[in-house]
């Protein structure tokens, strides 16, 4: 079971935090601080595991991934596989960072083997190095929606990024058009609609 998902930047500022067991706010903040103090002391190119038993009690493991200026941290117990969680982080960041425009590309990639996908993520990560954190900062609700699609109550429900993207897409439309789920015809006409406005200029030019 996954106990918590944290995203924080390299200065220790939390960008997203989700605990799957209730924790008082102070404890959450303390946990974030503790995790950061460990993560920031780790050099690059070392393993992505940290001993988390001192912060989160017995039988807890911590896996993190460092993308550009962000740490993605998953805390879970012995019923998850460490490497699988690492892959999951990659899927999540992939969706969060790149957005849904790439769904079609991804669906092709689903067919390609795992190895290729990892390489692709790494490449994209390099491309998006500078926008990564801002994307997450401003897409706070969207990140939560993505996370909720992947993990529910500490259980991983979806490991395919294509499926997650489809769901996210539909949910965002549903938020805009309450009757969207009934009238899918609108889909064609609303493809310009994004959940989060890209920029002011984009809006004004319209």
């Amino acid at each position: 079971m996954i106990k918590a998902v944290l995203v924080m930047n390299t200065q220790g500022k939390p960008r997203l935090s989700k605990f799957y067991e209730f924790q008082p706010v102070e404890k959450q903040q303390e946990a974030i601080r503790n995790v950061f103090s460990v993560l920031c002391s780790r050099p690059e190119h070392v393993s992505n595991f940290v001993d988390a038993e001192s912060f989160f009690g017995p039988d807890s493991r911590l896996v993190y991934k460092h993308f550009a200026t962000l740490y993605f941290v998953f805390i879970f117990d012995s019923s998850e596989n460490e490497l699988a969680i690492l892959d999951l982080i990659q899927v999540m960041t992939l969706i969060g960072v790149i957005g849904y425009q790439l769904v079609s590309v991804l669906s092709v990639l689903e067919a390609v083997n795992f190895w290729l996908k990892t390489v692709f993520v790494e490449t994209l990560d390099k491309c998006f190095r500078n926008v990564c954190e801002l994307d997450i900062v401003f897409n706070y609700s969207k990140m939560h929606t993505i996370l909720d699609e992947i993990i529910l109550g500490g259980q991983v429900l979806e490991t395919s990024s294509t499926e997650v993207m489809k769901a996210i897409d539909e949910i965002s439309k549903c938020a805009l058009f309450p009757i969207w789920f009934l009238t899918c015809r609108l889909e064609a006409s609303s493809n310009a609609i994004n959940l989060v406005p890209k920029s002011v200029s984009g809006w004004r030019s319209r």
Partner: protein
Amino acid sequence: MDEESPTKVGLNTEKAQEWSPLVSWRSFVRGSAKLVLNLSGIESVREAEAEAEAEAGVAMAGSSIMENLFQRTLEDLIKGMRLQLIGESTFISKATEEIRREIKSTDHHTKSTALQKLAYLSAVHGVDMSWACFHVVEVMSSPRFAHKRIGYHAASQSFHQDTPVLLLITNQLRKDLSSANHFEVSLALECLSRIATPDLARDLTPELFNLLSTARVFVRKKAIAVVLRLFDNYPDAVRVCFKRLVENLESSDPQLVIAVIGVFCELAAKDPRSYLPLAPEFYRILVDSKNNWVLIKVLKVFAKLAPLEPRLGKRIVEPVCDNMRRSGAKSLVFECVRTVLTCLSGYESAVKLAVEKVKELVVDQDPNLRYLGLHALSVAVPEHLWAVLENKEAVIKSLSDEDSNIKIESLRLLMAMVSESHVVDISRVLLNYALKSDPEFCNEILGSILTTCGRNVYEIVDDFDWYVSLLGEMATIPNCQKGEEIETQLVDIGMRVRDARMQLVQVGRDLLIDPALLGNVHLHRILCAAAWVAGEYVEVAANPFELMDALLQPRTNLLPPSIRAVYINAAFKILIFCLDCYLLQNEGSTSLDSGNLAGGQSELFCVKDDTEAAELATREGSNYEQDVGFNPKNTAESSEDHSAENDIDRVASHDQTLAHPTLLAKKKFMHESIVNLLNRIELIFGPLIANQNVDVLERAQNMLSLVQLIKEEIIDNSFQNVDKKDTRVSAIIKLMRDAFTMELGPVSTSAQGRVAVPDGLVLKENLGDLQAICGDVELPSSSSLSTGGPHLATTSDASSNLLKNEESGTLNESTSLIEHRKRHGLYYLPSEKSEIVTDEYPPANDPKSNSNINDEASELVKLTEQSFLPKKRTNQTKPRPVVVKLDDGDVAPISVKRPESRDDSLSGAIKDVLLGSETGPSMSQSNPSDKSSRKQKEKKKPNTNVQSEMKENVVDAEKPDSENPNSSSKNHGHTRDRRHRGKEKIVEGEEHDQRGKKKSGHRHGRRKTHQRAKSPLNVVSQTPVIPDFLL
């Protein structure tokens, strides 16, 4: 973009705000909003109203539209935060204030936006949002999906078991769970997965039951995941939902399978036995599924089930190996490896394959894989040590990896490989590593050496002299923070291993005499142990005077009082010993032929002191002159000096008559040095009678009174004839000496339990308040050791060792002492004008900085190359010394843990359901023999009361239970232990043996009760008879 939505005119303003400075944005926006509204010319009624209001200049605070217009969205909030015009905390408090105002609005949009901001601040910046729980409920019940989503998000983030409004949302959840919009259903499910309470779970079970078979996969998979939380909170839901859950296991939709296998993985982790009947389903998934995630989860389930059912292992080993061979995904391969090593370790071919895979992992480029490879090896240690030995090269190389995880893991493995034959070499190399590595890892290394060597009462240590000096070396490593562990082991070895005492005292002396160590806080505990050892085993010391010097050095005032007290007590013991020897020797010299048992000892002492006493005397003589100068009792002591001279003359004449030149020459110095000693003690301990600490104060006072008493006598003696000397002093000394020579032994941890509680003494069950009382009282742990105890007579072998070593020892020590004095002149009351004394001492042990770690690694590889060869213990020159072991006390009693009652009720419910569903098509044929038991179950079905179960089980437990792995393994361990002990010629007194027998009988009884306590679980396993699913 939201512009289509009618209420979103507010967006205009938020854009306007982007170019307005933060401080006065509101007033500005008002104008621009009007402008924009005019420009865009939208003709909606609400906007017209807003315009009218703005024009009238009565922007009413209460108006929902105005609020809506001027409200900051979440994005604005984030932007404002990033601008950081005012400090972050002020910004947050301002924003919170704003939210508090906005959230009271009657407009849904304003309210939900405010709540969204609050949720953001709470999750990211730790702002309290418990006050808003009622607003959360309101927003949750909003008809619009966008608002509802915000409400549900906030609820799942902030609600918990004790939230008061939880009662209000049951109906809302029920409505949303049965909504036609599957996104709304999924919102409700997500929320429920977080906040489910027993009440909510009970009330919503019917809805979830419906959702478990809905055609909409999107909702169904979420419902499946929520079922886990449902079972946790409301075990009776199992009766309703379990069957549908199992049906989902057979689904062909991969999304559903991921969800349901995840749920079973969690359930099986808590109580694997109940899910054994489902093994055929899991097996089918293992064979059929191509999804890595599902395979990993199903392997996790089997890892829990396989140890319970031997037939299962046979069946799954083939598919697991298959997956291991063909899969390209490392995560799956690793999971297979882990499964094989943990629960299929009996299948040799599988283990071989797994170890091969591990070999690939440990040399991989990716540090993650290297780490996990080592981790997998450590899993294999107990059963397949050969797997580690095969990979030893990689393991040792990892010791110098830059990643601390990998280093620690490889260290653990290395320590697992250590055995008697090469513990010396490995420890040596590791210690060198420790010197060069960072403090954290250094202590990690030290800690693992200590635990490995101390394991099972120093099982793997053959040469205690080596081990004791290793401990001494560890203490001098600059980064050492393992003071407490080293302290314990030093004292423990002292009490358990008689033959190691001489070396122990030697090491203790080296530690005590180095003033540099006194400044290191982490070493104080070690010094405490060293002082205790020096005092307790002074009779094997090469030179008690030197020990005394060390204990009396002025820098001891750096020590905390508790340790200072140990120092004083040690000094006391040494003084008693010296005086005793002195007196005996005098006796001996007068009546040499009456060589009683004490004579032997004193003679020993004389010989050993022979050489260095001379040096001592001359040096101390010069010091002494100054001593007197400082001493208030100047006059009294000058006469003493005089007397010493007299004494020398007298003894010298005596000498010639007796024709024992060496012995008497030394005795002469003895006298002088004793007098000297007494003076120094007086000088050093004089100030301590004003000490704040009672322990120090009292002991110093005792010491001083004794010294005063004795000094008179000894000075008297020097004038009188020695024959008259058996006065009260010698009586006192003898008495004390006898008291101190009682040997202290290790105390069993269960010793207290054997003491019967006296009649009439009422012991409180719970001693919690005792702790509260004693909480702030510092336990004088060290001093409790030194309060004298039982007896010790110098054993013959100890003394023979003493004889052997003394000649080589003395020379060494005295030179080092001289050097020491040269270095730290301040203590020895400088003969010349002292240089400025700095408080800075050179570090105790400078790490070699130039050596290369990689060289070290290759060296270690080479070393282990030889030593890991299964070499026979070569004929040892020295047999392993005797280690005192207690029969039982070395291991703390294992407390029997009862499974939680909730799990019981859950597993009981699942058992019932499974037995019921066995008739269903999903199950293979059931064993006819279990009908009776099923009936039994059915009788019990209405109440899942744990107690009734237990009663029944006690009866069952009377049957011999051969399957109980616990009891059998315990038995085994016990017998092995016995054999082991026999081999190692453990000293056990007769009473020990007797008690051992009694104990074992007692223990047998305890094991029975243990079984009984455990039995409910076993019976649970036996009653639902596992169908022969695999045949």
